[in-house]
């Protein structure tokens, strides 16, 4: 090892605490890259492997009842590779040992051979046999939640008839990787399941012999999906399928996975630069100081014949060594967390297998980016060392010039001499002061970003469950019924109140914007169970005519009150009606559109009808109600508000808890890294000054104060900036989360700002106190004798 390298190793050993603090900040950046990109790659790889091997459809459509012959016409469409017609219907699952009824979907399997599209992965057992009309396969997540295995029996209400079924197999489908039940915001494996039965059995049960109500197709790589979607729409239009065809982008499971990937990508884009910026700044600070301290050594090296390049490279290697430590720590932690995150996805999403991508290129990339950022931070200092002429380097640097900036001499009369020293020092090195403050503010910002989600989710839950949808359950009828049906629902055991609603699927069209929505019609008012909220979150009545859109839907469609839009009524063979946007509502779930009941009835031209009812339930009689629902064939679906809320809270809070822990750790590392280094550098620069003060008779406390005043001012000044940046980050997060499934409101409570600042202040205090101990232990004689 060359002597310069030996010096390097000893310098590193001496500076280990500062170097480690910087390396940890770098590690955070590397970790985020490795974690987010790694998990995104694993997720993408797993998804596409599952999709490819099990032939996941690219086009989806449904109808009321379409003749089987249509399948061949769809198959002949240009670009279509394979077509599978199916029967897909909602069912109610009555699971033993579970009080509340579960919702389900039954999907048909071809009588002969394997499905050409959306194949099933068979985890255990076998697929149901055609001849056996009481056999079914169920999805793995549902089976796990209920501890079901092949051979077990369960009961389902299929098309109003109760049937006892035997499970033959446990399966997974690319169609239900993310399986979400009606009325739920996150998957609840206990209350939602998908089951598969032979086509002929279902055709008999639903009276769909020689017909289908659902079709899926795969397409060739070069196919134009939009044109195929249009063609299928036209073919299905006479059969109740107008406007139902869509690509993968509108398939719930796929769209949700996509959203997750977008978020991971956003994380990889936004967070690492924050850390790398701070790391670059810290490297700059440390190296500038080191080079100032080694000024004469640099002069000597040059005098004995080392070139400027050799000296620059020497310091460059020091920076690279720190970056390598950061890279190693960040890569290890990132890979470990990335693996954990992928496993977590494996639980949250139903994949038959997980593919972990270990990507060497990612580490190389992270390494280059980190070393690059570090060297960029060091560049100025290193170039300075290279430029320093040897004869000048051998002389001590000229004393720092302080100025009477901003009338500080006047301030001097207001503050003690010690405070004036601190202020002058801050202003003299204003660039460093500003950067230190920015570094601290970024950690506050990260904490705000981590903690605001609790506020926002609380606000969201409050709005959805306690302001808008205040019912306990929503019952959906098997078909539309006369308004009198609400009396039958009111008569169910335990029902205290029932409010009818009508819902119809439609496609909202405005210009070239198009969205598949459900139009809901019900009476909304101050005292109704279910209420439409205006943008200020107050209950509002629905206007007698026109349509009220949720803020997100209106924004997506570029519609404003007073605008006209077209409504393609799927249930009316795609008849197109013109509607006027009569208001904007605030709804965080789904793409909501509301109409007054009379207005929708007029639009549908079939008199008053209802699709179901929202009910208020006597908690004490819940079991009776559940039993009655399971026994009432005309109720096709049930959404339980309380359980949805609980599950939502649980899932979100589990996720947020993990994220918060990570963010708090990151913020503490940044704060500590910035404050510790800044204090160490100050101490190094001012050791002589501080020791002189001690010699002059100032106490340790007073001398320590000079250092503390400056740090405290920086940390406090950084807080408001941190809050502002935190709001910005939070807004990005909220925007990243927004999907057609739900949007999160941006709500940040004052307590969140306070808590964020407290954590930062605490971390800063610990870092400062560690350095203060060094002030207390200053070796007066040695410091004063040292030439500088």
């Amino acid at each position, binding site marked *: 090892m060359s002597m310069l390298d030996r*010096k390097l190793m000893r310098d590193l050993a001496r500076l280990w605490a500062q170097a480690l603090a910087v390396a940890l900040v770098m590690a955070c950046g590397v970790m985020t890259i490795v974690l987010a990109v790694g998990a995104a790659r694993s997720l993408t790889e797993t998804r596409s492997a599952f999709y490819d091997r099990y032939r996941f459809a690219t086009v989806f459509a449904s109808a009321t009842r379409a003749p089987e012959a249509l399948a061949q016409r769809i198959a002949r469409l240009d670009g279509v590779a394979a077509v599978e017609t199916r029967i897909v219907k909602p069912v109610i699952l009555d699971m033993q040992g579970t009080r509340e009824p579960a919702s389900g979907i039954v999907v048909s399997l071809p009588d002969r051979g394997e499905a050409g599209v959306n194949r099933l992965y068979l985890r255990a057992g076998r697929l149901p046999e055609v001849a056996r009309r009481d056999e079914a396969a169920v999805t793995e997540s549902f089976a796990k939640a209920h501890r079901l295995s092949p051979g077990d029996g369960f009961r389902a209400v299929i098309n109003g008839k109760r049937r006892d079924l035997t499970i033959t197999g446990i399966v997974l489908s690319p169609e239900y990787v993310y399986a979400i039940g009606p009325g739920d915001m996150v998957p609840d494996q206990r209350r939602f399941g998908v089951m598969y039965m032979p086509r002929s059995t279902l055709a008999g049960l639903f009276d769909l012999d020689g017909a289908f109500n659902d079709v899926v197709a795969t397409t060739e790589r070069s196919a134009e999906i939009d044109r195929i979607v249009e063609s299928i729409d036209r073919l299905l239009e006479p059969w109740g399928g107008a406007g139902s065809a869509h690509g993968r982008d509108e398939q719930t499971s796929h769209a949700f996975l996509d959203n997750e990937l977008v978020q991971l990508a956003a994380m990889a884009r936004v967070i690492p630069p924050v850390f790398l910026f701070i790391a670059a700044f810290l490297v700059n600070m440390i190296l500038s100081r080191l080079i100032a301290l080694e000024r*004469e050594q640099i002069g000597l090296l040059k005098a004995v*014949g080392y070139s400027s390049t050799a000296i620059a490279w020497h310091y460059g290697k020091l920076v690279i060594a720190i970056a390598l430590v950061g890279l190693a720590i960040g890569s290890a932690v990132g890979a470990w967390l990335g693996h954990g995150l992928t496993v977590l996805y494996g639980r949250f999403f139903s994949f038959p297998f997980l593919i972990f991508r270990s990507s060497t290129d990612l580490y190389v990339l992270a390494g280059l980016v980190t070393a690059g950022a570090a060297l960029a931070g060091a560049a100025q200092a290193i170039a300075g060392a290279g430029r320093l*002429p*040897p004869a000048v380097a*051998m002389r001590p640097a000229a004393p720092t010039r302080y100025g009477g900036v901003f009338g500080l001499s006047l301030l001097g009369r207001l503050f003690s001499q010690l405070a004036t020293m601190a202020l002058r020092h801050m202003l003299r090195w204003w660039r460093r002061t500003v950067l230190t403050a920015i570094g601290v503010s970024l950690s506050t910002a990260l904490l705000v970003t981590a903690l605001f989600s609790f506020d926002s989710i609380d606000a969201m839950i409050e709005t959805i469950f306690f302001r808008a949808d205040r019912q306990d359950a929503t019952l959906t009828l098997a078909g539309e019924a006369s308004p009198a049906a609400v009396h039958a629902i009111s008569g169910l055991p335990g029902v205290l109140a029932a409010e009818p609603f009508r819902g119809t699927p439609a496609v909202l069209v405005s210009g070239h914007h198009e969205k598949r929505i459900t139009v809901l019609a019900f009476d909304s008012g101050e005292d109704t169970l279910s209420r439409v909220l205006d943008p200020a979150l107050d209950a509002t009545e629905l206007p007698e005519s026109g349509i009220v859109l949720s803020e997100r839907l209106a924004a997506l469609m570029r519609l404003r009150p007073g605008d006209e839009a077209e409504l393609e009524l799927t249930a009316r063979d795609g008849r197109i009606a013109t509607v006027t946007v009569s208001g904007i509502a605030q709804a965080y779930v789904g793409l909501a559109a509301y109409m007054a009941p009379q207005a929708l009835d007029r639009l549908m031209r079939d008199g008053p009808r209802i699709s179901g009812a929202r009910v208020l339930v006597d908690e004490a009689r819940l079991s009776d109600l559940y039993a009655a629902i399971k026994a009432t064939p005309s109720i096709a679906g049930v959404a339980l508000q309380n359980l949805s809320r609980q599950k939502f809270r649980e899932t979100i809070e589990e996720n947020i808890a993990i994220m918060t822990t990570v963010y708090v750790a990151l913020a503490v590392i940044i704060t500590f890294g910035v404050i510790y280094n800044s204090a160490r550098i100050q101490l190094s620069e001012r050791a002589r000054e501080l020791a002189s003060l001690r010699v002059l008779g100032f106490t340790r406390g007073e001398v320590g104060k000079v250092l503390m005043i400056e740090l405290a001012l920086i940390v406090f000044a950084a807080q408001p900036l941190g809050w502002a940046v935190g709001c910005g980050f939070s807004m990005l997060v909220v925007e990243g989360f927004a999907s057609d499934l739900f949007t999160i409101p941006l709500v940040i409570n004052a307590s969140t700002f306070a808590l964020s600042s407290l954590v930062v202040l605490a971390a800063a205090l610990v870092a400062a106190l560690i350095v203060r101990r060094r002030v207390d232990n200053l070796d007066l004689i040695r410091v004063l004798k040292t030439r500088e």
Partner: protein
Amino acid sequence: METEPIFQVRNLSKVYRTGEVEVRALDDVSLDLFAGEMAVLLGPSGSGKSTFLNIIGGIDTASSGSARFRGRELCGLNERQLTRYRRDHVGFVFQFYNLIPSLTALENVALVTEIARKPMPAGDALDLVGLKARMHHFPAQLSGGEQQRVAIARAIAKQPEVLLCDEPTGALDSKTGIVVLEALATVNATTGTTTAIITHNAGIRAIANRVFTFSDGRVSPSQINAHPVAPSEVEW
């Protein structure tokens, strides 16, 4: 002993600008140094002797004039060429030793032998200054005189043609100073290295072959010392 001149300096001037102040550190200096001689440059602080040494040593540049080393013009060399010149031909000894605190005595010497063209073993150089026994000590574990002898060992280890010493005894007491001067005299005698010593201590002139006196940036004609004495006889 006087042969061809190893340095030929003509009309050398140097003007420093520190902030708003202009300092004429060197004013029209001309002199020759000969191979193998021991020269002492006398003068009070600020007289320009260090600037002169720095320029002929290639760590500073002149404002005007000419300084030739073995006939080669030093003024006007670029940074890379100056680095090369220092690396191949010059050994430096400074008043404050300028050892690298994180390297041991041996490693400080090896720092130079590593990049030199025909160095002697680092241990031999330390032996020459009587420090072989302490070669694994860090600078902080050595006395001032020992540190300066390490610096001399470092300077001579590459077997330079010239050894330039800027106040080598300035920070030392008389006893230690004599030990250091003895080390320099030994090197000069055994290796024939041209040696220039800057000092403000007039007593040291006795060990030189020739003495130059600097004042206010100017140099007076050299005084030849026909009978140099041993350092131990120097009156401090």
